[in-house]
């Protein structure tokens, strides 16, 4: 199939950026979206045009590196799918496709479709862990964990940290990301010990990173490639309230 791409080109963080039009010809519907871009890039190089810079690594939907907004939707039109797992059979011959970076104040563009998402790392650094050292821990079966709690923790822990939730939110809020980590750890006995401290520190860092606030639009859940539920946001709000009202002794 033949497509027309409108791609965001921006040389570096200082450049103002613009959309450029490129044809994408003879695209095989079995290609992934990123393979389509690879093919377009090979063509651009042959014409002496610098290739479109975009982030990707695992190309199997788990590392969270790939990140772009396709026709206004982070990761594109297919639900529960990262852009590296999106395939061209979801598009039609003759389609025009608009490709832009994830847009959010906390994710400045570095080049073309590549953004800086290190704010997410700093939020985890603020408390998204269990404070134990290597060694000296009890046997893995010493503390039974109810299967339901483990499954729910796993639902939250699946987050790949891609940032689509932020890009989809009109306030650029990071609540889904932060709540997933807060919930994952609070749901397990191993993480529950320091749950209050954790939620306060992580939310504090989130606020420091120019993310917006949550106004319950749920756009985040709709674009999340791992379909992480907004119920975790409600859980985090409860955790936060308890942390504020009943601080750790």
């Amino acid at each position, binding site marked *: 199939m033949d497509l027309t791409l409108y791609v965001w080109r921006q*040389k*570096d963080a200082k450049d103002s950026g613009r959309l450029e039009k490129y044809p994408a010809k003879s695209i095989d519907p*079995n*290609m*992934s979206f990123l*393979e*389509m871009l*690879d*093919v377009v890039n*090979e063509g651009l*190089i*042959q014409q002496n045009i*610098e*290739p479109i*810079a975009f982030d*990707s*690594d*695992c*190309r*199997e*939907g*788990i*590392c969270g*590196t790939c990140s772009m907004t396709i026709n206004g939707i982070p990761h594109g039109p297919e639900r*529960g799918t990262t852009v590296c*797992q999106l*395939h061209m*059979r979801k598009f039609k011959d003759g389609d025009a496709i608009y490709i832009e970076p994830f847009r959010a104040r906390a994710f400045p563009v*570095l*080049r073309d479709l*590549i953004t*800086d*998402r*290190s704010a997410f*790392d700093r939020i*985890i*650094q603020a*408390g998204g*862990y*269990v*404070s*134990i*050292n*290597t*060694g000296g*821990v*009890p046997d*893995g*079966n010493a503390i039974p*964990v*109810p299967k339901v709690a*483990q499954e729910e923790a*796993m639902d939250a*822990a*699946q987050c*790949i*940290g891609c940032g689509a939730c932020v890009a989809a939110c009109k306030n650029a809020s990071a609540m889904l990301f932060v709540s997933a980590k807060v919930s994952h*750890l609070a749901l*397990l006995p*191993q993480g529950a010990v320091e749950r209050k401290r954790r939620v306060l520190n992580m939310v504090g860092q989130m606020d420091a990173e120019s993310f917006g606030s949550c106004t319950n639009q749920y756009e985040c859940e709709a674009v999340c490639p791992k379909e992480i539920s907004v119920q975790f946001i409600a859980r985090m709000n409860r955790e936060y309230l308890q942390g504020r009202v009943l601080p750790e002794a």
Partner: protein
Amino acid sequence: MDGNSETSTGGAAMTLDAKIPAGPLVEKWERHKFEMKLVNPANKRKFHCIIVGSGLAGASAAATLAELGYNVECFCYQDSPRRAHSIAAQGGINAAKNYQNDGDSVFRLFYDTVKGGDFRSREANVYRLAQVSGSIIDQCVAQGVPFAREYGGNLTNRSFGGALVSRTFYARGQTGQQLLLGAYQALCRQIDAGNVKMFPRTEMLELVLVNGKARGIVVRNLVTGKISSHAADAIVLATGGYSNVFFLSTNAVGCNTTAIFRAYKKGALFANPCFTQIHPTCIPVSGDHQSKLTLMSESLRNDGRIWVPKKAGDKREPQAIPEADRDYVLERKYPTYGNLAPRDIASRAAKQVCDEGRGVGPSGLGVYLDFSEAISRLTEHTVRERYGNLFQMYEKITGENPYRMPMRIFPAPHYTMGGLWVDYNLMSNIPGLHVVGEANFSDHGANRLGASALMQGLADGYFILPYTLGHYFASTKPEKVDSSHAEFRKAEEEVRERLKKFLSIRGKRTTTSFHRELGQLMWNECGMSRTDASLRKALQRIPEIREEFWRNLDVLGSHDELNTSLERAGRVADFIELAELICQDALHRTESCGGHFREESQTEEGEALRDDDHFCYVAAWEHQGVGKPPSLHKEALQFENVHLAQRNYK
């Protein structure tokens, strides 16, 4: 007792001392831990270590060393340490917990691993790995890794290829992700505490030696293009595997050999480079545009049955082929292990039936992995619970629903058992240069068993390196060196020259086209099976590719900006040279063993035939210059606790 060594074909004599501790197998590690020197806690801050890589091996090592009080700098090429390719491991992690009461033990895990590796690994290393395996699970549980559990609240297990016990721990189909997030979070805690300085989007491009010791690295900031030097008292490479030498593999597109290959060119020995693993269950190639191959976890072989039509050229839809016309290849050939036969064996069986014209799918390069029997036995719900995300991934890529249609799978390059040579302390032959995780050669011999790489990466990082590195610091007094030393200036200059060279060629071919050509060649001539003729053909062609690469490459842009093509060019340049080394190793090893199958060396039934009289050694290669044959050093392998036997999975 010590892994003694011998040097042949030129090169200065070098003693390859594996430093295996004396004493009975079961006591070696305990004894060694006691005999190793300790660093005074008050002095730990003064020791500076660089860790390149933030996967399971790198992140666990960085976090643990920082907890102990060392001064750590950690580097990765991704934008966040959490994205290292360990994240993609699906199936699980082994540990000899014997929670299932099915007869597992440290010795059995050790035995299975040595046998699975086709008797080409060091007994002492493997035994230690099995010994610490249980602690890994405890550690991960304490970090909040949500491993699968039973209703009673206990951990549950699944079986994996090459084992008859159930010892694999898992977190749905995302075990690597959950383990890596555990290690990443431990690392984040140390970053927050100021004990680790993290450098994401930073690529190591050179190793720096001062007075024969590894003392630093030269890196490029991938956003600004800035080249800088970092000095330390020890360097740890945790940079993963090199399967991308085949271009198409299950690795991430950024996975590369640059860090270990630069070290090789600085004198580190590269051990068993031809021991590469082809994974039997990947989604087949769909066309020339293909940029990577996706693994379908081996755990699927617990419930999926592999089959092809009995008749060549049978083009009927799978449902239309009656039982009587199906060949359940693995169940027929290996009744004891059936669909759980080890990877090398399962891969070759698939290749063989495709070579016979019985392959399925449009390309004829595929076999069925069928769940219909499991769905009727267990219900679709249970199958969904076990493998839901894998089935979903399959459907996204192929557009086919595996609950209705059998999956089509085909082998793909996946893991590299070879890597930099290390001794029992995980130190290479260059003092101060340590290598952990997939980047070293240590524990898997000629074939790795499923769910054992995660175990090895975390064993190295959490429980082995933190001891042995301390011993290195305590027993060598590193002289003061900082990055103003002339060796750093020299290395930086070399790096800059190389980058400028890539940009100045302005030829006609893209980096990707060279990489694809190299990968095709390697897959055809040095892939699932190898012959003297095929390897000689590759060894003739690779230098031609290398020559054309340096003459006809086209990389646009400049070096002082974010330039993804330039990054790739450097990686492919190293892959081209590595490919030659792999083929040389494969040519010299005229036996078959594990993942290295020489057609000339097989049993009557077509199984790999080892030649223990001539090849019971680790082949460690020393660089002698580009285009020149490397020299071979041998570390003899001794088997005192397992009996060297032909592997039998029938």
